[in-house]
C-alpha cells in the first residue's frame, strides 16, 4: 500500500495548471448560483451560460416547450425519439452515433419531459473535457451535432421517411405499453393524472395508444414545424467552456436561421391545480397481475414552486415522507413492516402531493389508516424538534448537492423559467431554515384529499 500524502500539496497546483482549477477563484461562494447564469435573448431563443471550472463534463442542452394539448400530445411526444433516427446529412441513427463516438464518446441524446401543463422536448450533449489528450475542437463539433439532430430535417427523408416513421410508431406503441411494467412509476403517474383530471397536466407524457393509428410522416412533420414555430427555446451551457460568448453567438445564429427570431418570449406563469374541488377521496382501483399492490394517495395543495409557502410545503413533505426519518417510513415500514418502500412526492409545478407505497393487497385498510394517521398527526401539530431539524438538514443536503451537478443546475434554472419565478438555492435554504412548526401545520392543512389509487392483483378485492 502506498502512502502518498506528500503528493497532495502539489495537487491543487497541478490541477490549476492543467484544468484551470483554483479554489480561491471559485466565484460562487456566498453568492446565489443563478446570479452567475449569463443569459442572452433573441426573440424566443434564450441562451443561458454558467461558467463552471470544477466539472470535467461540458453540458449542452437545448429545450423547447409548448403547452400540452390533447390534439398533439402524441405526435409531439414522438418527435424527440424521431430526431435521433437520422437527419439530412447524417441519415441514420448509426451515422449520428458514430459522429458522437468519434468526439470521445460525447453523449448526444434527445429527451421528452413533462412539467405540469408543459410538454418539453430536448436535445443534449455531455462533452468530455479532453483538452489534456487532444487538440480536436470537440466542443464546436458537438454543438454542430446537437443542432443537426434538432434542426436539420426535411419532409419524407431520414427520420421523417415513411419507413422510419412506421418503425417509430411501432416503438412508441411499445414504449407506452411498457410504462405498465414499472408498477411503482405507473401507479404514481396514474394517481397524479387522476388528481389533475380535466386539466392539461393529466395528459400522459408519452401520449395515447389510440392516436397512433392516425400517425404518419406528414402529420409528424407538420407537428415538428409547429413545434419550431411556436415553442419557447432555452439553451443551457454549463461547465468549463472556453469561449462562451462566441459559442452563444454560434447557437443563436444556427437556431434563428431555422426557427427565426420572431415571436415574443411568452409570459409564463404556471398556476397550481385549483383546490376546493373535492371534499373526500375518490377511489380508483385498477387490476393487473401483480404480486405486490401499489397504494398511492393523492392530494392537491393549491401552491407550487412560485408560491411564498413553497418552503413550508417542502418541509411538510419532508416531515411526512421525504426521508428515512419521516413519519411514513418510521410507521409504515419500521413499526408495522407493511412495506419496503413508502414515500411522499410533491410535484413543484401542479402542487399535487402523492404518498406512494407497495404493500400486500390484504394490508390495504391498515396501510391506509396508518398513512392517514401520519397526515393527521402533522395537521394536529404533532411534530418534534428533531423531525424539523432532520428534515431541514436533509433538504439542505439535497439542494446543496445540486451545486455539484451540471444537469441539476440546468433543471433548477429551468424550473424557475417554467414557473415564472427564479429561486436561488441559497435563498431557499435560508427560507427553509426559518420555517416553523406552525408553518408546517398550516401547509399540512392545505392537503386536500383527492384520489386514492390502488393497483392490485386480478383476484384481490379492494
Amino acid at each position, binding site marked *: 500500500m502506498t502512502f502518498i500524502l506528500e503528493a497532495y500539496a502539489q495537487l491543487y497546483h497541478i490541477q490549476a495548471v492543467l484544468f484551470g482549477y483554483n*479554489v480561491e477563484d471559485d466565484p460562487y461562494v456566498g453568492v446565489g448560483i443563478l446570479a452567475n447564469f449569463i443569459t442572452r435573448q433573441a426573440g424566443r431563443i434564450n441562451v443561458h451560460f454558467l461558467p463552471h471550472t470544477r466539472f*470535467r*463534463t461540458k453540458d449542452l442542452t437545448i429545450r423547447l416547450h409548448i403547452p400540452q394539448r390533447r390534439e398533439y400530445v402524441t405526435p409531439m411526444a414522438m418527435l424527440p425519439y424521431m430526431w435521433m433516427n437520422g437527419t439530412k446529412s447524417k441519415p441514420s441513427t448509426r451515422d449520428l452515433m458514430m459522429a458522437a*463516438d468519434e468526439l470521445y*464518446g460525447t453523449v448526444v441524446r434527445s429527451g421528452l419531459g413533462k412539467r405540469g401543463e408543459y410538454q418539453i422536448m430536448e436535445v443534449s450533449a455531455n462533452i468530455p473535457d479532453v483538452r489534456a489528450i487532444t487538440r480536436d475542437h470537440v466542443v464546436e463539433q458537438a454543438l454542430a451535432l446537437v443542432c443537426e439532430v434538432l434542426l436539420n430535417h426535411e419532409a419524407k427523408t431520414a427520420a421523417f421517411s415513411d419507413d422510419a416513421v412506421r418503425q417509430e410508431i411501432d416503438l412508441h406503441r411499445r414504449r407506452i405499453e411498457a410504462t405498465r411494467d414499472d*408498477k411503482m412509476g405507473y401507479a404514481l403517474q396514474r394517481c397524479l393524472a387522476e388528481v389533475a383530471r380535466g386539466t392539461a397536466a393529466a395528459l400522459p407524457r408519452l401520449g395515447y395508444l389510440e392516436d397512433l393509428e392516425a400517425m404518419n410522416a406528414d402529420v409528424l412533420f407538420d407537428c415538428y414545424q409547429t413545434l419550431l414555430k411556436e415553442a419557447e427555446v432555452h439553451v443551457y451551457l454549463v461547465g468549463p467552456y472556453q469561449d462562451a460568448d462566441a459559442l452563444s453567438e454560434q447557437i443563436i445564429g444556427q437556431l434563428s436561421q431555422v426557427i427565426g427570431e420572431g415571436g415574443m418570449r411568452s409570459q409564463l406563469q404556471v398556476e397550481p391545480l385549483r383546490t376546493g374541488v373535492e371534499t373526500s377521496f375518490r377511489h380508483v382501483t385498477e387490476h393487473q397481475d401483480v404480486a405486490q399492490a401499489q397504494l398511492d394517495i393523492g392530494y392537491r395543495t393549491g401552491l407550487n414552486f412560485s408560491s411564498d409557502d413553497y418552503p413550508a410545503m417542502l418541509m411538510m413533505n419532508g416531515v411526512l415522507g421525504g426521508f428515512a426519518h419521516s413519519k411514513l417510513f418510521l410507521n409504515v415500514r419500521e413499526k408495522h413492516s407493511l412495506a*419496503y418502500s413508502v414515500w411522499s412526492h410533491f410535484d413543484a409545478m401542479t402542487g399535487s402531493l402523492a404518498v406512494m407505497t407497495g404493500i400486500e393487497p390484504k394490508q390495504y385498510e391498515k396501510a391506509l389508516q396508518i398513512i392517514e394517521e401520519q397526515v393527521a398527526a402533522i395537521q394536529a401539530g404533532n411534530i418534534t424538534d428533531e423531525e424539523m431539524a*432532520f428534515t431541514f438538514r436533509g433538504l439542505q443536503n439535497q439542494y446543496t448537492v445540486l451545486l455539484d451537478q451540471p444537469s441539476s443546475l440546468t433543471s433548477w434554472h429551468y424550473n424557475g423559467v417554467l414557473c415564472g419565478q427564479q429561486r436561488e438555492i441559497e435563498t431557499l435554504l435560508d427560507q427553509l431554515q426559518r420555517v416553523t412548526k406552525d408553518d408546517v401545520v398550516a401547509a399540512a392543512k392545505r392537503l386536500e384529499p383527492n384520489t386514492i389509487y390502488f393497483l392490485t392483483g386480478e383476484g384481490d378485492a379492494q
Partner: protein
Amino acid sequence: MTGERAAKAALGIEVIAKTLDNGLRVYLIPKADFRQTFAMFATKYGSIDNEFKLDGKPVRVPDGIAHFLEHKMFEDDEQEVFSQFAEHGASVNAFTTFDETAYYFSGTSDLRENIDTLLNFVQKIYLTDENVEKEKGIIAQEIRMGDDNPDRRVFMELLSAMYAAHPVRIDIAGSVESIYQIDRETLLTCYHTFYHPSNMVLVVVGGFNPVEVMDWIEKNQARKTFSPPVAVERVYPTEPALPRTEAVTTRLPVSLSRCLIGWKDTVGTLSEGALLHRELLTGIVLDALFGKTTKFYGELLRDGLIDKAFSWEYDLTPHYGYTVIGGNAPRPEELVKRVKAYVADAASRGITEEDFERARKKAIGRFLMSLDQVSYIARSYVTYCLRDADFLQTVDVLQTLKLEDANVRLREHLRESQMVVSTVLPKSETAS
C-alpha cells in the same frame, strides 16, 4: 511510481491510501471544490459467501443472509441510524451485491460526525430475536417487488441457467423461504466473520482536506479494539466450464417480452492487473460488436427485434465472469438466431481497426466524464479495490489495448458452447 502519479495527475485525481493497524484499508480521493462528500464503507462479503470454513469447521448459512445482515446493521439500541445521519444532514444507504456489502452516506456538512457515524454503526451490531423476526416481513416485500420486476427476473434466471453450482446463481436477497430460516445467532456469526476491519475498505471522495480526514478516521479506529481476524476460508463449489443449461423461459404479467443472451467466461487465476485489462478489453469487443454504432444493432432495431434499451454488460470477479446482452425483445427466438450467426461471422472475420479505435476513444471520454460524479468514483473504486484492481488506471489500460488481443478475446470468450438464453414471456390471458 512517478509515472503512475503523473497519469493520475492528468486525470486531476489523487488517491491517499493507508492501511491502518487493525487492517482497515482507507482511500481518500479529494475533489477540489465539490460541495458534496461521499463515503463508502464496504466489506468483501456478498450473497455468494454462503459457505465457508471457520477455523477449519464448515459452515453453511441460509441464502440471502448477507443482504439480511445489511438491513439489520441499521438497527441501533440508542438512536435510529437514519436519524444519526439525518441530524447532520447526510443521507445514508447501503446495498448488497454478489461479492460486496457497502454502506455509504452523502453529505455536504458535518463531515467528521458523519464519518464517525458511518464507522460506528457498521462496527457495532445490535440484534434481538424480535428485531430479526420483524425484518422478515420487510425483506419478503422487497423480494416480491423483485419478482414482479421483469428486468431483474430475466437476469437472475440467466445466471441460474448459466451456473450449475456457484452461488452467483441464487438471487442476492435469497428467497422468502430461505430468509425465514435466518436467526440471530447465524447473523452474528456472519457479522464477526466478515465485518472485521481487515476484510473492509473505506473510500471517501469529495471536497475535503485529506490530512484532516485521515486523522479523524485513525482516531476513530484507535478508540476501538478488535479481536484478531478469524481464519476464514470461503468455499465455492466446483463449477463446470460449460453452462448448466442452454435456455430458460419465465412467464410474467408483462406486455413486452425480454431476452438476455449470456456467455459464461472461464476465469482461472488472474495475475495482477489482469482483471482490469480483461474487463476493458472485453468491453471494447462488446461495444465494437453490439454497440449502438454497429451495423448489427441498426439492423436488429430496423427489423423490430430489439428496442433502444438493448445493451451489453461484462462482469468479471476473481471467481466468475459473464457477458450479457439483450433487453426488450418482441421476437426472442429470432433475436437469438441472428445473434448466433452474427457472432460466428464476427469471430471468423475479426473486429476492424476503425471500430476498435472508435470504441477505445469512446471508453476514454466516458470514463473522464464519470469523474464528475463523486458517488460513481467511490462506488467503482470500492468494487475494483475489493477485486484487487485499480479503477483509476482505466485510461492507462485503455491506451495499451491492442486490436489483435481483442480478436483473440472475441474468439475465446463468445463461443456458442458457452452461450445461455433467458427469456421472459407475457403470461397467457388466463389468470393463474
